[in-house]
């Protein structure tokens, strides 16, 4: 093997195909979700404390910045879940071909987008 052959591992110079975009966003949304868990657990804690605590959650999430924060958490969750289900389907041998992979990736974007819009409708 020729060890001097040129190798380009600089990902920033490579045009990402749709499958790679789905993959990197799966990672980004996963990292965001670690922080989102803290927000969701705080909501669970406060809502279970007392009836006042439960009411204070809807009170706090009536302001726009809080709504945006919650929407971001739900958006990350929706995207990560849909992209994760694609992995499980591919583990079962569904959508494993190059064409199937691309179609699955586009489907992930479409389904996640619909869910993110629905989450926005729910929050507002």
């Amino acid at each position: 093997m020729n060890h001097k052959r040129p190798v380009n591992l600089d990902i920033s110079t490579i045009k990402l195909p749709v499958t790679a975009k789905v993959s990197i966003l799966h990672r980004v949304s996963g990292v965001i979700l670690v922080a989102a868990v803290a927000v969701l657990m705080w909501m669970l804690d406060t809502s279970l404390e007392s009836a006042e605590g439960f009411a204070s959650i809807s009170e706090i999430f009536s302001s726009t910045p809080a709504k945006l924060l919650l929407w971001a958490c739900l958006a990350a969750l929706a995207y990560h879940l849909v992209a994760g289900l694609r992995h499980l389907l591919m583990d079962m041998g569904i959508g494993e071909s190059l064409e199937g992979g691309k179609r699955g990736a586009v489907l992930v974007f479409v389904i996640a987008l619909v869910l993110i819009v629905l989450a926005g409708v729910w929050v507002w």
Partner: protein
Amino acid sequence: MVTAATSFGRNGLADWVVQRASALVMTAYVFFLLYFIFATPDFGYEAWKELYSQLWMRIFSLLALLSIVAHAWIGIWAVLTDYFTTRLMGPKATAIRLVCQLLLAVVLVTFLVWGIEILWGL
């Protein structure tokens, strides 16, 4: 194999299985909560409190929480060992990655203990 020392199950297949099993638990939990919130006629504090007072719901929640801990460890390990490398970050990469993993461990243990306190009303 330095990187395998900080992986969750010490081998790729174990991590692969844990990642998928935990994903299924969390997916079931998310769908169940959505169903409960939308299908409960008078959804409010009473119904919510009643749900989380059930032993099965506390166990289901604890399983979801344990899944979060394992899933996050495996996922962030994959991200860190891919990008926090000597090639991308220089000779300090491993030290930086270990500090990040240590911080993550503190965060995840905090989630676990906090979650148990919430679920059992401690």
